[in-house]
């Protein structure tokens, strides 16, 4: 049989194959060991050690962390300082604002692509939205920086109205750039979701006397909600952890900046304790999103 398929008969590997065939658990172990060693050993291991830092003390003079010297000092320091709460609220608020902005921008274009555009225009638009998605993240931030500059493009556009350019310090810059960066991540799942909504449902709703707004609110929106939530995973969690955008286009401090700055200073207990916040928020968000069926719409 083996000669007919052109394979060399190899006694040992064939015996192993037969044995594996008879022992599915061993097969499973063989399949899972490498990915688990990598993800649990390398990734979860590193993450755990980092997070354990949150419960250790660091020498206030040298900044060196004393492992296994348990304390809640880092948490006390964070809870006792209003700045940490302000930064957390600012970041979560921004993540929510960006999510809402992107949803509002994405729904019309996704609806147009899925229900109104000709097949040719639709193909063109899908590619037109994929292109900026694949373009470099830093290039896009760099481009916006040049737009915001005191003598940049925006200042030139606003000049006739007597308004000055925003410069590169305003927190609203972060809002615009975040919304810009993650917009394609919101458009594509909503478009895919809308494409799956059968047109007959909309016709039925119209036949029953519902106006456009009512049909949208009571038929379309509930059906595309999982896709919207799927898109919001990107807009929300990507904003929550980013520290490059606020650093480059504004002077605002976000959760990511606090973690970065503390780790750069060697203050690992604070960095680790503060890291728990976005981790818990993202995990909570993912769990809710999974309940809403968003994972099937990714």
């Amino acid at each position, binding site marked *: 049989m083996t000669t007919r398929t052109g394979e060399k008969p190899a006694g040992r590997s064939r015996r192993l194959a037969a044995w594996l065939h008879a022992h599915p658990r061993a097969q499973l172990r063989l399949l899972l060991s490498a990915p688990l060693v*990598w993800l649990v050993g390398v990734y*979860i291991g590193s993450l755990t050690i980092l997070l354990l830092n949150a419960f250790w003390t660091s020498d206030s003079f040298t900044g060196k962390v004393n492992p296994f010297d348990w304390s809640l000092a880092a948490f006390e320091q964070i809870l006792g300082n209003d700045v940490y709460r302000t930064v957390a609220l600012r970041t979560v608020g921004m993540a929510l604002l960006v999510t809402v902005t992107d949803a509002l921008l994405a729904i019309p274009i996704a609806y147009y692509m899925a229900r109104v555009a000709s097949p040719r225009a639709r193909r063109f638009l899908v590619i037109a939205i994929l292109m900026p998605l*694949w373009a470099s993240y830093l290039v896009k931030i760099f481009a916006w920086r040049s737009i915001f500059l005191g003598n940049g493009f925006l200042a030139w556009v606003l000049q006739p109205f007597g308004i000055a350019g925003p410069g590169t310090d305003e927190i609203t810059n972060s809002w615009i750039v975040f919304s810009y960066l993650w917009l394609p991540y919101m458009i594509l799942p909503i478009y895919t979701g809308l494409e799956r909504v059968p047109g007959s449902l909309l016709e039925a709703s119209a036949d029953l006397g519902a106006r456009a707004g009512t049909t949208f609110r009571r038929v379309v929106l509930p059906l595309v909600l999982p896709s919207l939530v799927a898109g919001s995973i990107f807009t929300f969690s990507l904003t929550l*952890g980013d520290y490059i955008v606020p650093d480059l286009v504004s002077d605002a401090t976000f959760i990511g900046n606090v973690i970065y700055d503390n780790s750069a200073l060697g203050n690992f207990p604070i960095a680790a304790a503060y890291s728990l916040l976005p981790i818990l928020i993202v995990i909570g968000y993912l769990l809710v999103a999974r309940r809403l069926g968003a994972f099937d719409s990714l």
Partner: protein
Amino acid sequence: MVEARWVRVTLRVATWLTVGFLYLPLVLVGIHAFNESRFMAWPPPGFTLRWFGEALSNPAIPVAFLNSVLAALGAVAIALVLGTLAAMAVQRHSFFGKESISFLLVLPIALPGVITGIALSSTFQTLGVGFGLPTIIVGHATFCVVVAYNNVIARLRRLPRTPEEASADLGADTWITFRRITMPGMRSALLSGGLLAFALSFDEVIVTLFVAGAGTQTVPIFVLNAMQRPTELPVVNVVALVLIALSVIPVYLAQRIGADAGGGGRI
């Protein structure tokens, strides 16, 4: 068509405004690459090709490109192997904790890059591993696995099992069946997963910053450093234009490979 005329017209206007919003910054960067002035004031006082020459003679740029490509290739290779193994385990076996595997895989990409970066870099430091290309590859592979996994498992779900059973009935062992039946069935999923992972790695900044060390520059690290030095802005514009032009490649390939790669974005 259920939608009223005014709805359609409004949607069309909104659509093209949004497309304009998506392209405006990219077009402006493209124009600035030819800007005669060193500074990115608008409107440009004149146009020149000078910065392209300056970019070509900058030795750091080809090195950064080479590093980025090598890092991405390494990360893609590891991610494809690990992702395929995990996908085959989850799709074809039932075991305790199966539901949490996809959660575990998505964590490195879902959690903020700064946390992954700090965690990996302090582990490397503790273990005494020197920073460089290998540590970049490890870091990138960690968050690329999920991309390969998602593509492969989606394909495995649709792939009928009967050809594999027929292959086994005809006397082929597990390896031969995998190589000649399962593998060809998964090929385009591996291609699109690999493509996504490559793009993800090629563009990654934050984790790279933590695990690259001082001596190794990838393209994003080069851009990040150079854009904060006013004298290098014109060169950044040229590199930016090249990167924007390069993003046509994955879009084109994704369209060629098929619907699998195009839809869901980068994940």
